[in-house]
């Protein structure tokens, strides 16, 4: 566990042991539920979740440096009580949204700590968070931070934007060069994952009357996030292209056949419907084709693995992508034509 000072706990409250912190400050959970003087903190905690649900980052007077004296404890307590409310509501969508918003807030601090040339201690602390919490060793080189390529790749593959691909990075001597902003952005997902896992691992306290009203409000808030989608029957251009190649009797690569079959299986088509598509292939053999589709479907094979349609990224790598504006930033062909109602 990283040892934390007052300032650090306010910036990165998720690093603190919640129960221990309350005890050290001489508070119990019941006090927050019953003491009218502490109601302000419960209100702040609710607001913190609400703004996270609306995908706003929680920047209020809490992060105002001139209000430091009162803001510090309010900041940490409202975080801890927010977790209590989330646990009591049990709504995962809210926990995830809250984790992401808190991660973004922490990102802001991490980034300013990394560039604070005047405050060596903050910089060291930020680098320590990278190392101890996220197992990423970053080193400062001039205005950049450098990270070994394998470490970079492990995190960068979570991004779908091309600018994060290794080919679009400054690479030198086995290291990737990143600005402070990019260094922090690199671990966003892990940061929110870390916060989320801490929340999920925390014990759920028993319900107190003082929290009931807020928890009810959270359940209502969560109802907004139920999304209904409808899928149009259209095929994405990569699939259309693969079918066209086969119809012309030309050879479709192994990865192309894999993509086509897994896509159609994913859309609920049967082996009887899919197999005839391959009949014009130069090496057509019905028995073999049916066997292979069956393997992909998970109906056969040693461990009954059902294979999923590859991602757009993978399809691009295999030169099978024929992107059109209709693709609309999807990351997997299965999402093509999916519309929110």
């Amino acid at each position, binding site marked *: 566990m990283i040892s934390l000072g007052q300032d650090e706990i306010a910036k990165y409250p998720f690093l603190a042991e919640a129960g221990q912190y309350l005890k050290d400050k001489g508070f119990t959970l019941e006090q927050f539920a019953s003491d009218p003087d502490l109601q302000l903190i419960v209100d702040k905690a609710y607001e913190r979740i609400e703004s996270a649900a609306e995908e706003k980052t929680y920047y209020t007077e809490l992060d105002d440096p001139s209000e430091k004296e009162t803001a510090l404890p309010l900041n940490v307590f409202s975080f801890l009580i927010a977790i209590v409310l989330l646990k009591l509501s049990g709504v995962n969508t809210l926990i995830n949204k809250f984790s992401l918003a808190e991660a973004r807030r922490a990102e802001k601090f991490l980034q300013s700590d990394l560039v604070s040339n005047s405050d060596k201690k903050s910089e060291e602390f930020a680098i320590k968070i990278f190392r101890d919490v996220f197992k990423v060793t970053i080193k400062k080189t001039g205005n950049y931070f450098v990270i070994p*390529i394998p470490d970079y790749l*492990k995190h960068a593959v979570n991004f779908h934007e091309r600018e994060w691909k290794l080919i679009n990075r400054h690479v030198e*001597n086995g290291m990737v060069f990143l600005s402070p902003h990019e260094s922090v952005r690199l671990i966003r997902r892990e940061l929110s994952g870390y916060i989320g896992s801490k929340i999920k691992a925390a014990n759920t306290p028993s319900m107190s009357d003082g929290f009931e009203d807020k928890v009810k409000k959270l359940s209502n808030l969560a109802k907004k996030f139920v999304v209904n989608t409808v899928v149009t029957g259209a095929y994405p251009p990569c699939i259309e292209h693969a079918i066209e190649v086969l119809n012309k009797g030309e050879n479709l690569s192994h990865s192309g056949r894999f993509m086509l079959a897994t896509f159609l299986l994913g859309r609920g088509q049967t082996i009887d419907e899919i197999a005839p598509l391959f009949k014009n292939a130069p090496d057509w053999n019905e028995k073999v084709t049916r066997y292979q589709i069956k393997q992909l479907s998970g109906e056969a094979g040693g461990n009954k693995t059902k294979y999923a349609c590859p991602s757009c990224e993978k399809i691009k790598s295999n030169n099978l992508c024929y992107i059109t504006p209709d693709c609309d930033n999807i990351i997997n062909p299965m999402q093509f034509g999916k519309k929110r109602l």
Partner: protein
Amino acid sequence: MLENDLKFLEETFKQYYFDHFDLIHVPDRPKEREYGYKKFNTGMIRHISLKTDKDLRLMLMTNLPSDVFCSNGYYSFPNLPMAEKDWKEADLIFDIDAKDLNLSCRKDHTCMKCVSCAEISLVQDTCPKCKSNKLGLVSLPCQNCISGVKKEVLNLVKILTSDLQIDDKNIRISFSGNEGFHVYVTNSSYNQLGSTERRDLIDYIKFQSAIPERYGFPKNNPSRTSFPDLGDPGWSGRVAKELFGSKSKRSKTITKVISDGKVAYQQKLEEMGKNSIGVKIDSNVTSDIHRIFRLEGSLNSKSGLVKLACEDIEKFNPYTEACLIDDKPVEISASSPIKFKLKNTTFGPYTNEKITIPKYAAVYMMCKGIASSTSM
């Protein structure tokens, strides 16, 4: 494959293994690897675990395989089904094959074999004998193919040692036994990478998915200074060299690039990746962390040549050094409209005739499917 051919090849392969035990070794950390083999006319048998050279040689002698494989992955339980093997790490392996280089010589040494009637002829739209359009291509690669692949291998090694900072002593190159080379990277921090991460690395090596912003053409107001310089490290330097040719042409070229616009520059980068500076590795091979690879020292049933480690790739000649089957004369019936060269001897063309040639050449043609045994 015909019964006689099968028997002949099995005997020959067995003799090779018997004579060349010195070349047959299990790799490092043998107990953590998965092994597999194929026999002539059968599918793959895998999920085998072996411990010593002796185990491996015993497997060869008892099963008479046509091809032998070993995993790049290291597992706790290599003989269990894939999901239960407990993957630990995998060597980073690259495969560069002549067929992926689009060399102009290829059409000169490729013929076709009809799937329906087995007639062998020069490449045309339909089978000259039965008019079927189900046709397979047979290529007998030439020295030019090998030189092309070697050039790619050297470019790859340069990127591995400079950009990726992989130690020379952890890189091993071997001839695949047919028409390509494998580059092995062992004991590196890249071993831990999963398949998705390896795919990003592949795009790096192939120079794929590059965006104009990274290579000097920002969204707004492109300036001359933002474009890469010839001395820049990594891809910036290589792009500059390819784009400008020399320092003196830099300024003039940038003027043109800016006036042609960003879309044209994007296309130019893509084209460079595909046709010039990108290294032509096989993506599917490198991204697979559960693959089994032909074992060094074993025969390749697509050619009868040996997969062999090369100390000095520039001097290495696969058609002499990896051709290790003996030269006892054998009679075969051969049909090859194209010539090929093995051990500095040129063979062919043959039009459906009975010939007597050294065993290594006979095996080569039988493995390529353009000859069959007349004996027995």
